[in-house]
């Protein structure tokens, strides 16, 4: 025993002049950049918020008083309502490290079902409207089952269902638009989301925008204040660890895709409100625009990190830049150009923030 102690003392003596600490965590260096990185890691929504505010300030100078008039700013909100609503659906899917490429197609299919059944087939609105919502729920459920039960990659599943749902849009609509005036006469409830409330100062709010905010608040509550919400984040962060922790990742995934389908159907209702009609031509770019909003909003495509509020900011950023550039008199190709730059910047910042956990 004493021999051992003596030997160990000798060994200690040999270590003289070396760092005697066994193991320790690296202390925060306190450098400014690293500090910012830490803040961003904790509050990822700060980046899109700063970009949004910067955009508003820049265009207030570049595009003049027309831009920051209350009416114009509320117009931007109206213009992004559809994309933001779809973006909310996309956010919860991406949080699980998945992707849903069929959101745009589900939205249009639901709007066509609502419009066509109510106006062309004369089904009472009390049945046609829930039927449209049910369409979205079923589409989402199919995605969820294929991802969680058949265990196919979400990208492949929704690439396939995107085509299937888009084909059903043509099948159900007969490629015909249900005119705004016919919907107004027969099923005005479908245009409810397009009705406006004057807020004051010239600003107007649509019921569609209010619906979007209600969905966002509900999703925020579910994701941040319920066990299910934590399961969604955990499933996206590390599905194996989540499973070992006792989370039923299969049911979580099915629920997420189904909820996304339901939100897409609501987005379909918002679409009818905005364009008046139920048109198979609408929403061609909605899919990618929604993913763009999610990415610019700071939600990581690798899952597990991101926020509902970020997506709303992301959609607003795209809307503000498009509107501002147009009012500043720039050609529409520069609007595309700018949105592309925004995506790359957003992903670069995301990668930089991720390094903190590496």
């Amino acid at each position, binding site marked *: 025993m004493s021999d051992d102690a003596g030997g160990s003392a000798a060994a200690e003596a040999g270590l003289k002049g070396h760092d005697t600490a066994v193991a320790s965590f690296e202390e925060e260096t306190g450098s400014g950049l690293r500090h910012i990185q830490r803040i961003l890691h904790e509050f990822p929504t700060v980046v899109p918020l700063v970009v949004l505010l910067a955009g508003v300030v820049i265009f207030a100078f570049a595009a003049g008083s*027309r831009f920051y008039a209350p009416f*114009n700013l509320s*117009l931007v909100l*109206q*213009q992004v309502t*559809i994309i933001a609503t779809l973006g909310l659906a996309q956010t919860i899917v991406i949080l699980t490290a998945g992707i849903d490429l069929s959101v745009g197609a589900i939205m249009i299919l639901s709007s066509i079902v609502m419009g066509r059944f109510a106006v062309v087939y004369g089904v009472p609105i009390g049945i046609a409207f829930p039927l449209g919502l049910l369409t979205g729920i079923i589409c989402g459920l199919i995605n969820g089952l294929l991802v969680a*039960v*058949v265990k196919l990659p979400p990208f492949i599943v929704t690439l396939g269902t995107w*085509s299937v749902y*888009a084909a059903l*849009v*043509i099948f159900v609509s*007969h*490629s*015909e*638009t249900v*005119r*705004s*005036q016919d919907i107004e006469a027969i099923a005005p409830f479908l245009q409810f989301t*397009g009705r*406006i409330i004057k807020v004051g100062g010239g600003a107007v709010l649509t019921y569609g925008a209010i619906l979007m905010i209600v969905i966002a608040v509900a999703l925020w509550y579910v994701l941040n204040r319920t066990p299910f919400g934590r399961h969604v984040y955990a499933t996206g962060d590390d599905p194996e660890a989540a499973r070992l922790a006792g989370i039923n990742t299969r049911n979580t995934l099915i629920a997420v895709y189904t909820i996304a389908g339901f939100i897409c159907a609501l987005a379909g209702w918002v*679409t009818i409100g*905005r*364009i*008046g*009609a139920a*048109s*198979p*031509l*609408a*929403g*061609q*770019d*909605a899919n990618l625009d929604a993913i763009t909003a999610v990415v610019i909003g700071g939600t990581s495509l690798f899952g597990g990190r991101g926020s509902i509020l970020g997506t709303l900011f992301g959609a607003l950023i795209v809307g503000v830049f*498009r*509107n501002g550039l*147009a*009012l500043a*008199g720039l*050609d*529409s*190709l520069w609007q*595309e150009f700018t949105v592309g730059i925004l995506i790359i910047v957003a992903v670069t910042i995301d990668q930089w923030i991720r390094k903190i956990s590496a």
Partner: protein
Amino acid sequence: MRLNFAKAAIAGVMFAGLFAGTSAYAAGPIVGLITKTEGNPFFVKMREGAQAQADKLGLTLKTYAGKFDGDNDSQVAAIEDLISAGAKGFAIVPSDSSAIVPTIAKARAAGLLVIDLDTPTDPITAVDATFATDNRKAGNLIGAWAKGTLGDKAATAKIAFLDLATNQPTVDYLRDQGFMAGFGIDVKDPNKYGDETDPRICGHEMTGGAEDGGRTAMETLLQKCPDVNVMYTINEPAAAGGYEALKAAGKDDGSVLVVSIDGGCPGVKNVAAGIIGATSQQYPLKMAAMAMEAIAAFAKDGTKPTVPAAGFIDTGATLITDKPVAGVNSITSAEGLKICWG
């Protein structure tokens, strides 16, 4: 895995059901029809017109469509498919006027008759014949009508242009520039919009030829020029979307003149309702039927259609309005409704 098998079985049954619904193959010569998308009623009507004519002439029609407007790859694959199937010829609405040309050359070298419909190829001589609406003339008609309707006020008009896409496909600039010429605007380069300096132009925004694009585009232009009093639109869905923007701004009282091009049934109904002031109607059914006749004649004895000096065979465009203007020929919306498509 058992689950997968069950799913595959269900899918198989569904596909069998779908194919059972299509008509049985006839023995006649094979002809093709390739359109831009299945989502647009214009192309759906075109397909119906081609099918009816093909049945009458004893041809076996194979139809193809791209996944979206601008989808060149699907059209290339369709042409390759038709060549290997031994088709006698086909009619195509090119999604990309230039990119499709080398593949069309391959088909013609293989002995197929190629008819272009609606959107001319670039160059127009890349095909055996083109049956199309004279889109510049169609634009011209609505331009002249708008000018005549405004009278003296045309000199101080403010015009919003709701165009198709940033890359300005042929149909896009032909209609836009046709309208400008008809209205009396110096178009500068007649094959490109955006280079004009006329102060009456508020701006050009892209709609994608759909309602949602039309609404956003018009909202933006109304913000830019609140005094807009003419709205030019690439097609009727864009016009319907733009009108929603006018309605939201309280400008649906007739203070803004709306003009469009297409002549689809929803569009003509909108003329009757006073939403669209005037539209130029085109005839997709006729285009497709004429193409089938040309290919049938070629399959029989090798005769090719003769192309007039203009470079293409004009299938006609008629102005539809309920407020006719002196010097511009037009028909009423009631007459237009009888011959509308979609």
